[in-house]
């Protein structure tokens, strides 16, 4: 088994923590792994993407069109933007939060409506949830990344213990309880 996972969102949403948790989980499972991130100017509120690839041996650190098994998105429009990167039969896990990009704010473009339905109409597996509310329920909006990892846990197919251990490795002790709660609520959300 090996998988290509993309974590996409808007710069500043915390995708680096999500990729760190996944990277650690994959390492615990004993795979070769590469994680590719974006830093610098594109981080400032722009569209950002992180690639997590694992398997027996990983060469290229990037994921290209039609190669992702899972796309985990922090924001709805970003899920639609990166859809071409999804493999046939792949799964999109997306937060339903909408953040307007500048062309929408200035009125040069409109935020497309019904994106989840439109993706499903194309035959795409979409798990959509309000991860922000899940995180809020767990105690803080900041836990949105771990809530999304919870939502992804079934598609990922890892041992639950592995994911829990990876979260413990990746978040500061004082936020562990909050993040574990967000993970469990996310997990429950994806099972529904």
């Amino acid at each position, binding site marked *: 088994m090996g998988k290509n996972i993309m974590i996409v969102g808007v710069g500043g949403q915390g995708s680096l923590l999500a990729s760190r948790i996944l990277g650690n989980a994959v390492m615990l499972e004993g795979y070769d792994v590469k994680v590719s991130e974006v830093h610098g100017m594109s981080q*400032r509120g722009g569209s950002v993407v992180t690639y997590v690839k694992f398997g027996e041996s990983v060469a290229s650190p990037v994921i290209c069109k039609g*190669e992702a098994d899972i796309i985990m998105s922090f924001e709805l429009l970003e899920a639609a933007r990166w859809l071409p990167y999804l493999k046939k039969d792949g799964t999109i896990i997306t937060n339903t939060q909408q953040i307007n990009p500048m062309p929408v704010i200035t009125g040069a473009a409109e935020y497309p409506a019904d994106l989840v339905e439109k993706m499903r109409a194309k035959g795409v597996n979409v798990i959509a949830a309000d991860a922000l509310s899940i995180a809020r329920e767990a105690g803080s*909006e900041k836990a949105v990344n771990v809530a999304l990892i919870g939502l992804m846990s079934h598609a990922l197919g890892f041992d639950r213990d592995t994911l829990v251990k990876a979260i413990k490795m990746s978040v500061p002790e004082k936020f562990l309880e909050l993040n574990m709660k967000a993970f469990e609520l996310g997990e429950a959300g994806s099972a529904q």
Partner: protein
Amino acid sequence: MKKLMLGNEAVARGLYEAGVKLVSSYPGTPSTEVTEAAAKYEEIYAEWAPNEKVALEVALGAAIGGGRSFCGMKHVGLNVAADPLFITAYTGVNGGMVIGVADDPGMHSSQNEQDSRHYARAAKLPIVEPSDSGECLEFTKLAYEYSEKFDTPFILRLNTRVSHSQSLVELSERAEKDVKPYEKSVAKHVMMPANARGRHVVVEDRLKELSAFACDCPFNKVVDNNTKLGIITSGPSYTYALEVFGDSASYLKLGLVYPFADELIKDFAAKHERVIVIEELDPFIEEHCKALGLNVEGKNLLPLLGEFSQELIAEKLLDKSAEFTALDEAIPVRPPVLCPGCPHRGIFYIFKKLGLYVSGDIGCYTLGAAAPLSAMDTTLCMGASISALHGYNKIRGEENKSVAVIGDSTFMHSGMTGLVNITYNKGNSTVVIVDNSITGMTGHQQNPCTGFTLKGEPVHGIMLENIARAAGVADEHIRIVDPNNLKEVEKVLKEELNSGTPSVIICRKPCALLKYVKHEPALKVDTDKCIGCKACMKIGCPCISVVNGKAKIDATLCVGCGLCPQMCPKDAIKGGM
């Protein structure tokens, strides 16, 4: 022990394990984390220098002094450091020295695409290029060993995909290196003509030795799969090629890219019916292969521009295109924007309102060029805002309607010499320093103005107003304003534009992302008062949108900076939730 590490962190680990004593760098994406990670090792003295030229000179001084040293920068930083770079080949080192430079094909966070390998050939220095984090660590350590053996600095060429990808690395202990004895040698270290003539002979002889070494060195690797197709490649391109061709091609992977391993290349080419050179940016290896008389392909098939990927290589070399699903409608682009609460936002609104010519610079505030602020005429290179404005005004005489805008870190990097040029040469330009008390764009690095070193030690921060004064700007024309007070900013700006004398306006407010900056509660629109005029949207804040004809503020993003209420003609935006 195996650890998942960024390429940049793995370089830093290599510095640690190689016994490096000193690191001096200037931040620049994608190179920054090498130095940040190195600073976390107690055994390494690490600092941010004000610019790359200073950093490289510090590292050279340390190497001459007998300690292993490193300096790191992005590709354009090497342009700034080019003067000492060329001299290092002549002086050689004593303790080993490595110059880390990170290129940015695809320009994720840069003003140009530039191939640093040309510098190796021009300066006659060896350059090594790793493909992943494991090689980052391994090549860094080896580079120190051979730097001392051949008495030359090595250039370590990184790349966005190598610097910012994590992969597994094997860690070892640090091998402590004693500081080597210093022996005075005027002929080796004092580069005046008589001595330099002698040293040039050494440089050329050394290159020949390195060229022979390249054919049998631990950096280069041949993977022979007994195929008709041979691929010559280096860096991240090797990983893309491997993913596309696997065992169906053989590979000559050049880790030591320059000087070229001529015999190795000729031998590899002779064994294969078809040879393709896969390299990002310029045909550096390809042209050399052709100069050797070899029949190779490369840029006739692959682009000169941008990043490569397995998709691109499969498309260009195998005519295979990806299969994928897409929605039928266009997805609006999401370009980077100034953050909510960014202290740079207001000044750009005023620039636009006054219709000024804006000579811009490199930093987060370059985003002031984007709509709806759209208030920038030029962005050239670090520090050029001030010097280029002086030239513009000498030609056009528009001092009353033009301004330079530059950040605190960029001003310290190379802006202040431009200011000295204005006062010295009777210029009357107005310089706005947007002082957010940090190096923002690269992710919050300290600089000489912030009051802290890279290691977090408190120091006496340099005051920008003192530099302006020392540069010859009159006290009454050095103004300090709160950039979120739009009325004051506009008033001061108008006064200084019309003053007929050099002036410096310091917009001082810390970056809204700094941990110590307290955020106010999100602002809220009173929908009864809001008339939907969209005046608040002129500042380009990502928190504000119009819903059902009324302004709406996203409470999850807003940090209550107080700028938008100043835009509202109906007093409809209020603080507190």
